[in-house]
Each structure stands twice: as C-alpha cells, then as structure tokens.
C-alpha cells in the first residue's frame, strides 16, 4: 500500500517536471502576424535590475546601479551620446559649451539658460558652484574619480556671472571634461533646507532627489522598486516618444529575471546568465545584443622572485591557454585583448597578438635560468567580483604545471582582504586577478592608477620612469593628436613589459524585449546610466 502510494507520488512529480520542462524549454508564443509599426504606449517601462541602488545622492554613490535611478531625475553638465553614425560624442546637457585653457588648468562652462530644478529654483552658476563645492567637500568615491592632486582650491570654483562657471584646477588635467559626465547636479535649496548638523544634506539626499531631469521621483519602495513619472515642466519638452513612467524593479534572483523577460513582464533584464543566452534569444520578442565594453580581464604578475625577469613574465603570457578561457569559459562571448587598454577606449592601439606557445615559454624560462620551472607561485582571485576567475585560475594552473611550475590558487573572500594579501611583503611571485573598468572614455584613469609607479592600484609593484613620464604628459596635454601618440607609445611599452597576462576583453549582453525603444547602449563608458528621456515602450505583443 505504501509502496503504491510512493509510486503514485513519484509519477506525479515526474509528470509535473516533464510538463514544466516542456513548457519552459519548448516555450513558444504566437508567432503569426507581423508586429504593427511601433506606437508609444502609456504603460510603464519596466526594468528588472540585479542590484538595488544604495542611495540617490550622486555625490555619495556613483556605481552604475546607483546612477541608473539618479539619471532619471538628475542631469550632468555634459554626457556621452551615441550619434546617428554610431560614434560617441560628449554633448552638453546643463552646459551649452565649455573651454579649457591651453595648459588644461582653467575650465570655463557656459551654462544652459532657462532651466529650473524640480523645486522651481533656478539652475545657474551659483547652483553649479555649490554642487562642485559639495562634491569635493564630501570627498566620497565619486569625487575621487578626479585625481585629488588636481582638485581646485575652494576659491578655484567661481560663478563668474549667472551662467558662467569657472573651475581652476591645482594642476593641468586634460581629461577633466570626461570626468564630469557622471557628475549629476542637485538642487542646492532642497539640500540646504534639509541639512542636519552641517552635513550638506547628505542624510536627506540619500532618499530624495531634486534635480533638473525629465522624471520626478515617485516612490522608492525599499527592496522592491523605484518609480518615476514624467516631469511636466521638463526643459527639454515632451514632443516625440517618451516613456510616461519608469519602474526599476529590484530582482535578486537570475531565474526570476529569465521568467520575467521571456514572459514579457519586463522590458529589460540585467541578470540573464551566460549559459541561458542562447535559449532566451530564441524566445519571440526577446532581443539579445552583444557589445564591447572597456573592461579588461587580467592576471597581473607581482614583481617578486622570478617575476622580476621580463623573460619569465613573457613566458607566463605565452603559457596561458587563451582559447580555452575565451571559448570554453566565456563560450566565445569575449574577445582576445590586443593591448593593455580595452579596444573600446579611445586611443586603443592594437599590439602583436600573444598566443599560447609552450615551446617559446620553455625556451624563455630556460634563458632566464628556470629550465625546469621549479618555483611556486600564488594565484590570488576574488571570485565574488568575477564568476570566471576560478576557472581562469584553474586554466592557468594547468598551463603552469606543464612548465614545471607549481601554483596555489587562493580565493579571497572580499576586496579588503584581497588587497591586504597583495600588499604583504612576503607574498612571493604571484598572479592576481583583476578587471579594470574604465570610468570614462579616456585611457588616463586606467594607466595612471594601474601603471604609474605610485598608482593607487599598482599592487604588483611595476616601476618604469619612462611610463610615469608619458602618463603625466598624456594627462596634461590638450592636443589630442599628441595624446594619441603618447598613449600609443605607452601601450607598446606596457605590452612589451608583460606586467600581466591579459586574458580576455569582456563583452556585455543586453537582454531586452522588442517593446523597448530608444535604448542605445553606451559601449565606451560602462558605468553610464541610460538616458531615460530618449527611451519609450510600445504595447506588449500578445
């Protein structure tokens, strides 16, 4: 009797699983009639985001998941915009024009007139001045995107007249404009009215936004969603097609993202797993786009022991199986790096390809006095920051073994402990996994922080006075042709010095419905928030 009952239960379970599997993987919606020409719908545009914003204050929080909701209500002086010919230009938003002095120290901005904040106070040079003063006074991560050594003195930020702002930096800094594309402006009056203990309104601004942007914050239901509605008084006007409401739903689980996207309950999902892309792409109405992004995956080599010798570092670079990593781990959805800079960044100059060549690697090791390998290295990874890092490390470990080099993989739990481990004096020759994401479309940030001898991210101890000199020159020269030449030379030097092995160039996937229109992924600045004003949705297809 019991056995029969168990048998019935198992049959029921198998039946449900089969039915579910058939429905899930053999999913098909009606594919009959062609979609009518898209018309803007009044329904809200809904995005399923994977990480909830930490706060709405742009001078405290500026990661991509923070800036997504911020950009709906706030605007910067200028912004990257994808032009019709697919080039990317910096276009003025709250500033109409700007000019830098020949020595790249003094920057003058002509602000756009006739704009008001949502609280009806005017956007002008005084408001802009206050915003920059606040940014530097708070001294949080958003401010540090601009090197602290060039920050203006307090009297270096001037409201010359009602619509002219002048910023005099302490030192020349050519890419200053690029650093401003993510600096959003908030209403000084609103922040001042809600100040507590001279905090510049920080506590209030975490959960409130008063800007000049096209959308008004409707509500932020913590742990659930942030919603926006149109600002009827937006200075850009509402002619053309625009979303009437925007909802950013926080959905932590990847399986839920897939369901929401395939059922059409969201217009875009941020968390479709790499393994699911092919299946999801088959679902009618789903669009999968692949884009280059300025993110380079590397394994830096600390300059310790055998790694002090460039021949050994070169041997390591030729030992790694790039194909296994790109085709096996990334399933072909990543590119082979050809420079220490990602190919999506301005001034990228391709270098000779580095291929896996065990024979060459052995030859180089022998020349350096390590014919049979016979040394041990550590491979530090931070898998919480990169799902691919454990497999990258395993591939490297197997490749090193072929050369007689033993290695130990150490998966460190968090960024702090990772950096602590790298800074230990007795770390020994080590690889450490790193992904650099350019904060703006200029190589200066990456090169200065990673390769300058005092760079804040130069944990591997790379030192080259010529490289330091070129980095400084590139940061202070306004002539773009000269900068291109400088960065070309830098890439060549760094490529030939093998500070690390550059294992893959990430590509990003946008998974959305075809009901979402006007979304132009910005391929050059990965932390950029989309321009919500340009986007709209059409009605869902049945």
């Amino acid at each position, binding site marked *: 009797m019991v056995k029969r009952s168990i048998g019935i239960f198992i049959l029921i379970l198998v039946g449900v699983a089969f039915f579910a599997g058939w429905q899930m993987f053999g999913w098909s919606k009606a594919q009959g009639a062609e979609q009518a020409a898209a018309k803007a719908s009044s329904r809200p545009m809904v995005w399923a985001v994977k990480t909830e914003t930490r706060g709405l204050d742009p001078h405290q929080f500026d990661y991509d998941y923070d800036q997504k909701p911020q950009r709906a209500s706030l605007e910067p002086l200028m912004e990257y915009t994808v032009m019709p010919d697919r080039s990317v230009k910096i276009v003025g938003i709250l500033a109409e024009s700007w000019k830098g002095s020949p020595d790249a120290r003094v920057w003058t901005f002509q602000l756009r007139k006739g704009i008001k904040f949502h609280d009806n106070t005017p956007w002008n040079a005084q408001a802009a001045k206050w915003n920059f003063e606040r940014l530097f006074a708070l001294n949080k991560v958003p401010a540090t995107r601009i090197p602290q050594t060039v920050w203006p003195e307090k009297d270096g930020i001037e409201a010359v007249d009602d619509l002219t702002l002048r910023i005099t930096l302490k030192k020349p800094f050519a890419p200053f404009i690029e650093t401003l594309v993510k600096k959003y402006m908030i209403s000084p009056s609103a922040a001042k009215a809600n100040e507590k203990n001279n905090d510049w309104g920080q506590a209030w601004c975490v959960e409130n936004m008063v800007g000049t942007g096209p959308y008004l914050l409707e509500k932020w239901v913590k742990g659930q969603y942030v919603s926006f509605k149109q600002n009827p008084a937006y200075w850009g006007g509402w002619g053309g097609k625009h979303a009437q409401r925007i909802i950013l739903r926080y959905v932590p689980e990847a399986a*839920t993202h897939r369901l929401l996207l395939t059922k059409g309950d969201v217009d875009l999902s941020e968390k479709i797993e790499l393994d699911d892309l092919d299946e999801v792409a088959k679902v009618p109405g789903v669009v999968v786009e692949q884009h280059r992004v300025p993110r380079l995956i590397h394994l830096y080599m600390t300059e310790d022991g055998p790694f002090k010798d460039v021949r050994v570092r070169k041997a390591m670079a030729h030992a790694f199986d790039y194909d296994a990593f790109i085709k096996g781990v990334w399933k072909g959805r990543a590119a082979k790096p050809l420079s220490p800079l990602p190919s999506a960044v301005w001034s990228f100059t391709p270098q000779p390809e580095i291929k896996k060549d065990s024979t060459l690697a052995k030859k180089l090791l022998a020349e350096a006095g390590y014919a049979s390998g016979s040394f041990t290295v550590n491979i530090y990874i931070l898998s919480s920051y990169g799902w691919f890092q454990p497999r990258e490390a395993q591939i490297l470990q197997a490749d090193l073994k072929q050369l007689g080099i033993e290695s130990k993989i150490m998966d460190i739990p968090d960024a702090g402990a990772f950096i*602590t481990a790298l800074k230990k004096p007795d770390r020994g020759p080590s690889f450490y996994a790193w992904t650099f994401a350019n904060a703006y479309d200029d190589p200066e940030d990456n090169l200065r922080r990673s390769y300058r001898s005092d760079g804040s991210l130069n944990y591997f101890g790379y030192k080259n006075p010529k490289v330091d000199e070129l980095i400084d020159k590139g940061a202070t020269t306004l002539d773009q042709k000269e900068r291109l030449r400088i960065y070309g030379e830098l890439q060549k030097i760094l490529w030939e010095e093998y500070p690390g092995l550059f294992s893959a160039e990430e590509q990003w996937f946008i998974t959305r419905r075809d009901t979402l229109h006007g979304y132009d992924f910005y391929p050059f600045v990965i932390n950029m928030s989309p321009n919500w004003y340009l986007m709209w949705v059409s009605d869902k297809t049945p």
Partner: protein
Amino acid sequence: MGKYLLRRIFTLVFVLWGMSLVTFSISHVIPVDPAAASAGMEGGPEVIERIRKELGLDRPFHEQYLRYMGNILFKGDLGYSILNKRPVLQDIFTFLPASIELAVFSLLLCTVCGILLGIFTATRAGGLVDALVRVFAVGGVAMPVFWLALLMQLVFYGILGWFPDGGRLGWEFEAPPSTTHMFLADSILAGRWPVFLDTLKHLFLPGFTLALANIAIITRMTRSSLLEVLHQDYIKAARARGLSQLRVLFRHALKNALIPVVTVIGLQLGHLIAWVFLVEIIFSWPGIGSYMVRSIINLDFPAVMGCTLFTSFIYVFINLAVDVVYVALDPRISY
C-alpha cells in the same frame, strides 16, 4: 509563573549580551575589511584609510565595542549602514514587518493545514489518503526550500500565470496606511480590499513555499500525537458515553494531542526564520532576510550586527512565549 518569567527575562539579557559579544568579535576577527568593501576595488588605499577612520574602525576593539553597546543601550542607536548610509534601526523597521508578515502567514498556513491534515489522517489511519499524506510529509521535508521556491515560481507564475513572480505589492497600488505595518492586516483595517487581494496574491507563493515543509512536519506530529491520545481510556469512555466523534476529537482529544505539536510549531518558527531569506531572495520579497544577505555579502557590519541582535531577541522572546503557551495549555505544568 511570575518568578519564572522574571528568571527567563534575566537570562534573556545574558543571552543577548553574549550574542552581541560573539558577533562583534567575529566581525573583527575574520580577515575582511569593511572599509575596503565600502570603497570598492577601485577606491585606492587613501580612500580606504579615510573610510576606516570615518567608521571608527581604526580604534581598539574594546573601544569600538563599548561605544557600540553604549549607543544601543542609551540611545537605541544601532549605527549606520556602511552600504547605504541609512540608520540600521530604520532599515530593520523598514524590512522586518515584511518578514514578520511572511512568517506569520506561513506559520498560520502550516499550523492550520498541518493540524487539519493531521486530524484527517489520524481519523483515517491506514487508508490510501493517510499513505499519500505521509508520503507528502516526507517529500515536503526532503525538498530543499530554494528548489521548491523556484519550482513554485516556475509553475504558478511562469507557466500558469496565477500568481505574480514576486514582490510584496503591485506598483499600481499604494501601500495601506500603516498601523501594524503588515499589508494584509492594514488593508483590512483600512477597508482597502483591492490592496488586500493583491497583497494576498503576492504573499501566497512565498508563504506556501515556506510553509510546505512545516505542514508536513506538523501533520505527522499531529497525526501521531492524536493517534496516541485517541487510544487512551478516557477517549473510549467519552465515546461510550455517546459523545459525537467531533466532540470527542475537538473537545477531549485535540487539546492533549496539541502539547507536543506546540513544541514543534515553536521549533518550526525557528526553521521559518532560518530559511526565510532564501524564499525572500527568490520571490524578491523585501524582508529582513534578503536585507541581511545583502549586508553580509557587502560586509556591512553595522547592519549585520544590528540584524543579528534583533533576530536573536525575537527568537529568544518566541521561546519564552512558547513556554507560556505550554502553561496555558496544560495547567499541570509549572516552573
């Protein structure tokens, strides 16, 4: 009873103090750096150092602990979240009601369903239905909660479309005026029936998922406890006096059979609290469980400490409540 309660409250204070010391110590012993986590990988050493000073993490351990406990005891201040800069207590009060609502709903569901199923099977012991329910009980306990949650979401949202994928309330609705901070109760009090129905729709899948394993356990416990009681002489005597089956069952048998069931329900509440975070993540339920997971992943120690202390307090308090319920059920029990 009064002395017992006082003794228990006194013990509760020690337990909470011990929890705070252990959690605070662990957060300082493990090789992680919340300042670096706050700055992120690209923060650089100067930024990390500055954040460390701002958070007071450069002070000696005992100074940090005393300051932390002093703030709690004299100001009711659990500190500020490193991640989002909000007061931790404010976050707890934002997210806790959702978890309580989910836990209470699940507990009610599993208690009512479990006891009813237990009674049903006890009165049909040995039959096909009894066997099926027992198999269901084993299956319910064996299935991992997260797997069950994914399956429920796939079937009831993905395929059938009967329930939403997750969340607490559709964005078309405004939350009801806060009295209990639980949407079901508040919407009834406010007479907002569309909100009540939408809340129920959102609550059902995560609530049932969480309840299922407990339904199974409570069913089995009720069944076996009731079967034992139904074989007692006084039950035979009651039947012999001509009392109806229902009267015998509910007036005489069930009350005695429920004593061990109450214990199990109390323990299952601990199970609910332990697993609620998995269900919250899968169903995007904005509760304290998912808040804690985010805090742990981001090394937000003030939030982790605050939630740990709060959860400990609730758990200890519930245990106390269970003991009080015992006395109410069985006057023979005394402390």
